[in-house]
């Protein structure tokens, strides 16, 4: 067992809206070991991206702690945080809007160096940029191209290069392959896995695509409406899902095999609004096993077999 590099404790992020508080992230706790990948899965609006951004302090948390090597980074001053950003980086989902259209590839990758290593000479920077371009598989000749001239896969490589040039230890990957075609997606996934091995990176991999998450993650956490509902290693999640939502999510994936028997759990209705959610389990309005108890109190996370689950149904099986 490695030491946890990052530990998130009771993280909360509420956004004030006109209709009331939006509980984007509500009491989420998890930890990631050094060199491992935690996959964070959920549907749109479940707070997974917000979690990633609060950890990096791109949004300020409403409450809770984020311990990085034991130090709570939510308490750092903005100067200390700027130092910290060298260690923690992010790759964004949309390779189109996450790159400033007016900067060249070199300018985009170089930006973090300009901010963080001010003493560096221009020649040194250039050398570094070219090295990182080699590493992520961008041809050197593209250094003076602009992002709109490149395809999605190459743009995402720029995003990865930009994050890695400061030699971080921890990278939040916020849906890094969702906007890409399957073939390119496979290339980027392989690249991310190679880089992790080579540079001993720790990943928080955020995605709505379970098959992708399973492929890359060691641990998987499933989120629903701001809460973690289940967390386990990737095999357990797929072979023995406990929470009804995890089960539904798994069975919703279309299987590329026409002979496969689909015994699908179709969830009724839509995700309820995260604004002022009613007390009790947030999934109960779509859960076919909902009990009166579910409306009264929210289930706590508990250990069931190899997983950590928040569901009243699993209480009987608790070990």
């Amino acid at each position, binding site marked *: 067992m490695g030491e946890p590099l990052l530990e998130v404790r009771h993280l909360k992020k509420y956004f004030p809206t006109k209709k009331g508080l939006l509980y984007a992230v509500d009491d989420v706790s998890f930890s990631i070991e050094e060199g491992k990948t935690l996959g964070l899965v959920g549907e749109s609006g479940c707070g997974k991206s917000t979690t990633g*951004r609060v950890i*990096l302090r*791109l949004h300020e948390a409403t409450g809770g702690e984020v311990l990085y090597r034991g130090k709570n980074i939510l308490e750092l001053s903005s100067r200390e*945080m*700027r130092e910290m*950003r*060298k260690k923690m*980086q*992010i790759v*964004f*989902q*949309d390779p189109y*809007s*996450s*790159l*400033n*259209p*007016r900067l*060249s590839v*070199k300018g985009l990758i170089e*930006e*973090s160096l300009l*901010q*963080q290593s001010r003493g560096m*000479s*221009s*020649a040194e920077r*250039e050398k570094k940029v070219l090295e990182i371009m080699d590493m992520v598989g961008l041809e050197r000749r593209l250094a*003076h191209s*602009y992002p*709109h*001239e490149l395809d999605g896969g190459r743009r995402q490589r720029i*995003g990865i290069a*930009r*994050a890695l040039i*400061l030699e971080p230890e921890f990278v939040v990957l916020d849906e890094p392959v969702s906007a890409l075609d399957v073939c390119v997606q496979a290339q980027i996934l392989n690249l991310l896995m190679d880089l992790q091995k080579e540079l001993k990176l720790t990943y928080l991999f955020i995605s709505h695509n379970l098959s992708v998450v399973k492929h890359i993650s060691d641990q998987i956490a499933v989120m629903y409406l701001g809460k973690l509902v289940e967390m386990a290693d990737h095999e357990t999640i797929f072979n023995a899902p406990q929470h009804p939502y995890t089960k539904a999510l798994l069975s919703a994936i279309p299987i590329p095999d026409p002979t496969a028997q689909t015994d699908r759990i179709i969830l009724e209705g839509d995700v309820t609004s995260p604004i002022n959610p009613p007390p009790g389990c947030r999934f109960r309005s779509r859960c076919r096993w909902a009990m009166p108890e579910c409306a009264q109190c929210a289930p706590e996370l508990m250990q069931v077999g190899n997983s950590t689950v928040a569901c009243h149904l699993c209480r009987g099986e608790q070990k």
Partner: protein
Amino acid sequence: MKQTKEKRYSFAKETIARLLKNKLAVFGMLVLCVLVLTAVFADHIAPYAYDEMDLLNAYQSPNSEHIFGTDEFGRDIFSRVVYGSRISLKVGFIAVGISVVAGGLLGAVAGYYGGWTDNLIMRAMDVIMSIPATLLAISIAAALGAGLTNLMIATGIASIPTYARIVRASVLGIKEQEFVEAARAVGTRDFTILCKHILPNCLAPIIVQATLGVAFAILTAAGLSFIGLGIEPPTPEWGAMLSNARTYIRDYSYMCLFPGLAIAITIFSLNVLGDGLRDALDPKLRQ
């Protein structure tokens, strides 16, 4: 350092090359050059002095001696238009410069920081906007006193809210984009983000508005001169000439025609140049 310089140079070169490909923009640029040269060498170009009166030859239609005709005091209109370019161009550019810089800065700050900063700035802008621009310019000019500098300041201030609004709106759109967040994630300072990432992406609407703004500035300045708050007669100025000539438009329409034409040509050339510049600065249109 050499590397960086080389790159900067090549970006500028590229932009100019793209600008030169646009025939209309090149045309606009040439016309503007001619106008500026006219202003510089007015002494040599104008056949008469701008205040040389010749009451015997007043109200002459364009002829070989006075190619643009003469006005009610018998002054040569061509000479006055030529001399007028000095003041009109100066007023137009400097006034727009003032409003673009001040308005742009205020709008950018308001849009980027939001919250009470935004409220404070934009409500102040609303107050300014609630007064008709011309009236506002008049009151500022009246407070500051007559004179060319005060005229430019007054016209400049009057259109600050327009630019503040435009810039704020585009900043609001751009700051939501992920690349701004990406810049923050690597620890970029707010000021750098604003200057390097946000403002360059708002250039297009500013350029378009600024080219139109020059026309507005020239005309406002003319209005101010007309009521005695700007340039003192007999100093020639296109707008002032135009408003003077209004009285004679039925009988001696050419008196209006030439200063009006001068303004129109300036605006047209600025417009096409502005459009060309906007496209040339946009790397997305690079072939």
